[in-house]
């Protein structure tokens, strides 16, 4: 098992390196620079380039960047008053993480429940209802839903705040808006997996033992259906966290997503790279965690990995 985890981490590092290299080159290929202000004289610009090392050839710049990165230094922002990128990410990640975590947890739980109920009541009104909800959840963009929530729950009913980030009640509406997509995806997937599992022969074996339906579903059904679902929860989590930028804008939440968009507009190289790397690390770590979790749920994988 330990060897298995180490090889996975090895692959992770290779993946990260490729991501860093590609995003670095792509960023450099973009037109423009952080110091595009027309009021800035050429000589001043050159001085700035020299100061930040932007006059050197691209491979050397990349080398310097990597060396700093290994030491945990993501550089300083060119635009935001020379503040360290790590600091900026630290400040901004809190809101995004809370929002993402809440949305994924709530969404997954509701999605699982909806999917299981739909599968158990296969081809009944409940099943069709759940399927319609899931399709709506996937096809309606989250910002439409966000606006709807702000208008009805926030403005008309006045139950919850519609903007800013000052405590738990501020996070409820954006969490719901963000969770809708998660619920829909998980519910659809769970329903299919559950139906598949319920048709397996071991379910029949369990029934022939005289077990009650609830035991059959929880002990024999859900656990087997969970295995493939876990695979999509990983990327879904990262997607939700990184994809929250629209919601963050709508609800004026000072999150990382909003910052990321701004940094691209201003060509803030260091901040773009820093955020990209942060997202990449997040992504591969989640996948690693899922892989390890997998081993605990599915004994077949555990043994192959261990031997």
């Amino acid at each position, binding site marked *: 098992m330990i060897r298995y985890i180490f090889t996975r981490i090895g692959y992770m590092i290779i993946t990260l390196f490729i991501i860093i290299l590609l995003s670095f080159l792509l960023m450099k290929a973009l037109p423009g620079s952080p110091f595009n202000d027309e009021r800035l004289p050429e000589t001043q610009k050159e001085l700035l380039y020299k100061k930040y090392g932007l006059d050197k050839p691209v491979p050397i710049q990349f080398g310097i960047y990597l060396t700093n990165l290994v030491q945990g230094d993501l550089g300083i922002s060119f635009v935001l008053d020379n503040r360290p990128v790590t600091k900026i990410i630290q400040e901004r990640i809190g809101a995004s993480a809370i929002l993402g975590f809440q949305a994924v947890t709530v969404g997954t739980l509701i999605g699982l429940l909806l999917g299981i109920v739909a599968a158990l009541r296969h081809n009944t009104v409940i099943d069709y209802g759940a399927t319609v909800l899931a399709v709506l959840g996937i096809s309606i963009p989250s910002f439409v839903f966000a606006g709807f929530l702000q208008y009805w729950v926030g403005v008309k009913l006045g139950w919850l705040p519609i903007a800013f980030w000052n405590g738990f009640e501020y996070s409820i509406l954006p969490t719901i808006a963000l969770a809708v997509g998660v619920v829909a995806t998980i519910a659809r997937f769970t329903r299919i997996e559950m139906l598949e599992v319920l048709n397996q*022969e071991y379910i029949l074996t369990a029934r*022939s033992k*005289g*077990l009650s339906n609830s035991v059959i579903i929880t002990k024999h059904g859900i*656990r087997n259906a969970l*295995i493939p679902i876990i695979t999509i929860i990983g990327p879904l989590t990262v997607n939700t966290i990184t994809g929250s930028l629209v919601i963050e804008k709508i609800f004026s939440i000072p999150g990382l997503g909003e910052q990321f968009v701004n940094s691209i507009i201003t060509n803030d190289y260091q901040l773009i790279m820093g955020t990209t790397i942060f997202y990449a690390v997040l992504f591969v770590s989640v996948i690693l965690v899922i892989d390890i979790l997998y081993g605990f749920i*599915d004994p*077949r994988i555990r043994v192959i990995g261990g031997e």
Partner: protein
Amino acid sequence: MKKILEVKNLSISFNTQNGEVQAVRNVSFDLFEGETLAIVGESGSGKSVTSKSLLRLNPAETTMLKNGQILYNEKNILTCREQEIRAIRGAEISMIFQDPMTALNPTMTIGSQIAESIKKHSTLRGNQITERVHELLQLVGIKEADKRYKQYPHQFSGGMRQRIVIAMALACEPRIIIADEPTTALDVSIQAQILELLKNIQKKMNLSIIFITHDLGVVAKMADRVAVMYAGKIIEIGLVDEIFYHCQHPYTQGLLAAMPNPDIETNTLYAIPGTPPNLLQPPIGDAFAARNNQALKIDFLEEPPMFKVSDTHYAATWLLHEQAPKMIPIHQQLAQAERKEREKAPVFDTTKPYLTLQGVKQHFKLDKNAINKAVDGITFDIYKGEIFGLVGESGCGKSTTGRSIIGLNILTDGDIHIDGRNINEAKTKQEKLAFNRKVQMIFQDPYSSLNPRMKIADIIAEGLAIHGVPKSEWRAKIYELLNIVGLTKEYANRYPHELSGGQRQRIGIARALAVEPELIIADEPISALDVSIQAQIVNLLKKLQKERELTYLFIAHDLSMVKYISNRIGVMYRGKIVELAESHELYDHPIHPYTKALLSAIPLPDPKLERERQRIIFNEAEYNATNRESESFTEVRPGHFVMLTEEELTQYDQVNSESIPL
């Protein structure tokens, strides 16, 4: 004997998109204490549905109970409350399913899967349950029970898993076990072990067993009584000897005649014509009449009642009516006809073999340190026009051999010559194509080997296209091929899902024949088919051999069919051919211990023989522990080669010189 279960006038239908399928139609039978009742029938005969309804396990949404009662302990299983049926399931009546690979939950240890029903139905708790699980594992022959009960299903082989399934079924000491094709998915020697295990446990616990199967050999070995089902009905029921030696219904007779009989040499197998009826609209009268070319007029008009043959033997055929004409049963007719014209064994040109394998090795690298030696140095020839049978258990390398011959793998070592040319030397696309044209393959599963989105005509035409047959000739060629395999040209415009298993296998053969090959590799071509359909396909393959001078490599695990069809047989064990001889020679004088064990493990469709037979057990551990470095493939009798070490060879020579005084 005490009656323990009674099924009365059971009729069950299924709601499907196409309408109501009448799966079980008015079935009645009794089950007595301590007996084994075998229910025999082809797929779709209603045998599984009947057995599942004994525990009410058919899917609730689509099942319609039309009529009938199942009485157990004065309770009607079909109408009792959910609570009551759950108390019976697993505790009083339990079930063993066909495929041990899917019948166990992959994410639960086998110990806790066995413990589940103990927890549910008994008062045992904690350590007592663990002890009981150990006891059960020992009972079904799983060693080191204390270690193994914590393991997961994937850590066991197929035979072991079936033992676990049996342990689960026995957990609460039930009175009835329903075994639904419990050995169909297993190799013959494992099958023999499992059947013997079931028999022993039955004796120990005075169990009643309902044994569902389509294999008449297994029936002869296991059953006290037999019920034959056809088109949702029991058409004949009686003691095992009555059914095997005095069967009355033409369908039962046909089934028995379709089995290759080791004693009677026949040129063609008897094949029941046609396919079973569609139970969306069950036929009027005797359901089998349409496939019976001696059917009486009344067979098409009125359903025959159960006529009494003896106190224990009943059959539903109008032939038993006092006004019925006397007919000679099909199997006896056959025996008479065959005695008249028996062909001489064909003679092959042995100087120029069509296919030669020289020290062929096919190793697969699993990871850094492990190599799977799927095929490990095999040498044999196949002569032009011959049918060469290759038998062995799953994993012995027989399918890999077939794949190597058609060039799906790059050989690790050795040479394969087809028609005098080395396939290793075929490098360019053209050369490879030329080989492919000569060698074609027929696959095991007629359901997955045809592309479901292509019409039959297009499936057959693919081969024509690759090998450059002009498009204008396709249609005529396709019709001709369909005709050869016994289908009408209307089939050209159908899709695979509209065809039955036997028809699909015919398409598989037509597709292979499209390029006019000389050698056909048939990889278990009949094992997915029903008995009566198997005979049709085997006859077709034999007919093609004669008419088109085809050469076959026939890969199979069903040894009785292989013996029937093959001229010579090679027995494979662990990647090597351990014995090779003409089929009679091999069956009459097996020499290698593995061959002996394999042959003795095949259940014969003859209950009297089965009772007398002793199974020879192959001691695998001992065999593999002996030093086999000196082993060589030696011709011990004319044309009969065996893989023996020097020591074994001297031993063999000694025994033989003693027993055959010259």
